């Protein structure tokens, strides 16, 4: 199982690894969700959904179903 954004815990940071461009909204990509960028999980709403992220300086929230489609690598691993 590859690690996705949805597997992170609050406080974790990771590097965006890859995703299928068709499964993500263009808006998210344009806000900086691109392979190689750093992503931090700032907060989780109740039921761990949505996720409040910091993607290389951009603060935004996405739903878990979207986060599951973004593969990441934890920092320092």
């Amino acid at each position, binding site marked *: 199982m590859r690690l996705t954004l949805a597997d992170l815990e609050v406080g974790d940071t990771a590097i965006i690894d890859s995703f299928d*461009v*068709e499964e*993500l*909204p*263009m*808006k*998210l*990509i*344009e*806000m*900086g969700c*691109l392979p190689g960028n750093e992503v931090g999980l*700032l*907060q989780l*709403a*109740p*039921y761990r*959904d*949505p996720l*409040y992220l910091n993607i*290389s*300086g*951009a*603060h*935004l*929230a*996405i*739903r878990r179903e*979207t986060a599951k489609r973004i593969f990441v690598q934890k920092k320092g691993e």
Partner: protein
Amino acid sequence: MSKHINVALIGNPNTGKSSVFNHLTGLNQKTGNYPGITVEKKQGVCRLPRGVKATVLDLPGTYSLNASSLDENVVIELLLNKNDKDFPDVAVVVSDVENLKRNLLLFTQIKDLNIPAILVINMSDRMRRKGIRIDTEMMEQMLHTKVALVSARKNEGMALLKEHIAAYKKISTKPCLSIDQIDPDYFGSLQQTFPNQSLYKLWMVITQDVNFARVERKRMEAQDGNHTRSTSFLKRLQQKETIKRYQFINQVLKACYVKDFQKATDLRGRLDRILTHKVWGFVIFFIILMSIFQALYDWSGVPMDFIDTSFAQLSDWVKTTLPSWLAPNLIAEGIIPGLGGIVIFVPQIAMLFFFISILEETGYMSRVVFITDRVMRRFGLSGKSVIPLISGTACAIPAIMATRNIENWKERLITILVTPFTTCSARLPVYLILIGLIIPNERILGANLQGLVLMIFYLLGFAMALLAAFVLHKIMPNNKASYFVIEMPNYRLPLLKNVVLTLIEKTKSFVLEAGKVILAISILLWVLASNGPGSTFKNAQEEVAKTVAVTDSGFEQQLSAYKLEHSYLGILGKGIEPVIRPLGYDWKIGIAIVSSFAAREVFVGTLATIYNVGDAEEVTIKNRMASETYADGSPVFTLASGLSLMVFYAFAMQCMSTLAIVRKETNSWRWPAIQLVVMTAIAYLGALATFQYFNL
């Protein structure tokens, strides 16, 4: 010599674009709609140096030129259409100093359309605190533009911006990125097919998938089917384009932007830890809500009473002063109360928008959306539906207008359809009089029983809204995968000027839009109530004189009651009596229901007229209602019929203005028609069940 130019204000949401617009144009603003759609169009006039005058168009906030909503589509539609009368001579792109990287993406896209673009870096007052330094000269060179560092909050840098706009001809139209480097093969052959067109513009047309572009795109496909390939191919190219743009932006920022992280304070982090906390987040949200509603009811009473009495006085004055050829009765009994019925909601609507725009300006609203999204999704709604549903307790009209930022059409439509179930302020007078009549003023476990029943009816409204949403969610087809991406903006102190301007603009739009409908209906109702068929109505004076002496003080009241009974409206009320009998109502209540179809609050006033109580004072109507009996001597208003009536008012769609606004927001009569039929059916069945249950 004076010159007139078109300026388009473009920018990401939350960059303070509206503040810049307000500073440029002051009160010289007008809002309308783009033809055919409900997107708001804001324009204003601005005087620039050297006698240049500019029409400034405040375009909807957008993150990029790849539109994902109707609002955003307006921007690209305008920028691709040179023949549009609003096509800008110069674009002013507003960015936020703390989110410059993301904001520059849009700037480079606009620049690549060969439109002269000025970069405004707003919120410069935060630079020192955040440890940011910017080399604007270097930035101007690298981006081939003019940069204005402004602070809309402190009104700094506006003169420089105006100077730049006036000198727009000096700005280079050189693009930032040559699009063909993304895929030389594809773009090379595209240029060959359309040699006279700008390559980036062609690319924009190909990748847009909404309205306008569709026409343009079909024309392209007719000429050449090769370049409009599969969406995955195009999306991959778009991603590549975005990566290239960020590479370019990073180069620029590396050369001219320094941020000293040691100086940065982490206010956002600290506030977020509380405001988006699993428990505290909700607690704080409910405290804020409670305070807003307390304020809404406490502060609106005085102005509402004032409006009520003023209109009543105006009405009296007209009746006694106007010459008969001006139809004083139509004006005094139809038009003025009709207008009063609109104006009476202004204090509450203005106040609600005041609070909502403060919550939005501070950035708190995004946190509410964040914490409630998951819960609301169970009901087919979105976190963004929370605000409309809550606003609905004041009035459904502004609430429905507030659904515009829900991107997903299904979630937005469900929100619009269920919002009228929430207990709006117009139901309150109906509830108050009926509760006073049928519920004893007693205490149960320390709580006031009447207050308890009122609260139950508020909760009933919310429960019905959620239930209806759930049912709609299950029966409506799922449209294509919905994406939920919201920006979590920085916390900011609200700007009073912005708040006040929003409030004025929204209130104006309510009065004008809903006003027309309420006015028309109230005139119609007046005509129906003051005319009747045959001689029974015409000879009312003589008929009443048979039982009451003309000189008697009660004569006028007897006369108006008699007239109402024999008017078209009265006949209508009697006509529906067989239908409403099982709910526990007589024909008089029938008239009140028919007349409050236009607006619920008419209920009490109509009953006052029917029971020929001279003035609409609550105590007197209540006493009169309490003593109202059927022919066999049993009372009309019992616990069963009273509760049944309240349930009817809780669920029925009795608000012309709401129907009009739903029609406007959904662009079709279909949805308001469904709302009317279904809600009335639910109300009927609910009232029937209530009456039959309590009447046992």
